[in-house]
């Protein structure tokens, strides 16, 4: 049980997908101007991640042992299909949410965090529960990074910054500080 807990916390803060592993940077840069949007995007991502982890475990255990070179293609097909399904579900259950998320949903497909999750899960040989905890931890970590960045950006929009500092240069330097801060989580669960 403590192993599972370590996997979750490690994926969430110690080896945060965005701030330590450089995955999921496209949404991180693009979505992160408003906290509300960031939360919604993050939630959609967690959902897709968990579904992906389960499907990937299934694929790895029963199918890919016989054709390891098809791994990448099958992962990408799975992710694209899952995103499509999630899109249709959200559209049916909550049209308002669907409209708010707009473009961000199909873009989850090209979010390197999801594919990265599948690949890391495979490389580390995680079982079903481990993969699940890994996905939840990684997803929560993404949300954490997104929301932190969004809050900071919302604040800085009203502050007195030199013109050229606005925009992506600032976002990246803030990201550097966040990444440094998160390095402090290393050694969190060690004996």
């Amino acid at each position, binding site marked *: 049980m403590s192993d599972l807990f370590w996997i979750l916390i490690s994926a969430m803060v110690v*080896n945060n997908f965005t701030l330590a592993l450089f995955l999921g940077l496209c949404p991180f840069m693009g979505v992160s101007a408003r906290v509300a949007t960031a939360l919604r995007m993050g939630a959609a991502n967690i959902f897709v991640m968990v579904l992906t982890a389960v499907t990937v475990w299934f694929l790895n255990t029963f199918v890919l042992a016989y054709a390891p070179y098809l791994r990448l293609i099958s992962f990408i097909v799975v992710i694209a299909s899952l995103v499509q399904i999630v899109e249709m579900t959200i559209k049916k259950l909550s049209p308002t949410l669907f409209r708010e998320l707009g473009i961000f949903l199909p873009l989850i497909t090209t979010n390197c965090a999801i594919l990265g999750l599948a690949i890391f899960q495979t490389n580390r040989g995680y079982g079903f529960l481990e993969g699940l905890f890994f996905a939840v931890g990684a997803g929560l970590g993404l949300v954490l990074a997104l929301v932190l960045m969004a809050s900071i950006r919302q604040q800085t929009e009203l502050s007195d910054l030199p013109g050229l500092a606005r925009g992506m240069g600032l976002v990246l330097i803030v990201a550097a500080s966040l990444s440094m801060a998160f390095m402090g989580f290393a050694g969190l669960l060690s004996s």
Partner: protein
Amino acid sequence: MTLATAGGMAGLLIVVVFEWAEPQIEAHRAAVLAAAIDNVLAAPARYDTLYVVDGALREAPPEGVLERDLERVFLGYDESDVPVGFAVTGGEPGYQDIIRLIFGYDPGSGEVVGMEVLESKETPGLGDKIEKDADFVAEFNGIQTPLVGVKQGAGQADPHEVDMITGATISSRTVIAIINNRLEELGPLLDTYPPVVKQ
């Protein structure tokens, strides 16, 4: 229709490249493993791969079980076919992420005879000293099990003691823990393996 042909061609291309690349990838993997075993068992003449099956060591995987699903240890022999020790791998979370290492164990003397870090993401300049600090690595060339970690400079009174690296306590502690835990798990199997006991 054309999409299907294109898909088929793509698949064929991948299979062709795979068939070409796979033997080289396997060869490299085997070479890396052999080099690591060489390092921790002080250059044995050859080694056997043994599989841990139901609490015993076997020389081949049982029927229907894939090799990669089983835990392995390696038994090294010198030129006169005398066993020199086992090479065992292990991994546990260290400071940043999981540390994987391989170590040599001589059941006759109960000593660890060598250690090599295979994978680590510890902090460069601090934690990564577990692989870069030659003195630390050399501590494992002939040390009594179970290992006990002590702060550097505490003096080496006890043959069980390993000087940990200042500023990399957690990483050092993890290395020691991996070895101790693996020996706790596998020790009885290794100590009682017939070709070794016969010595």
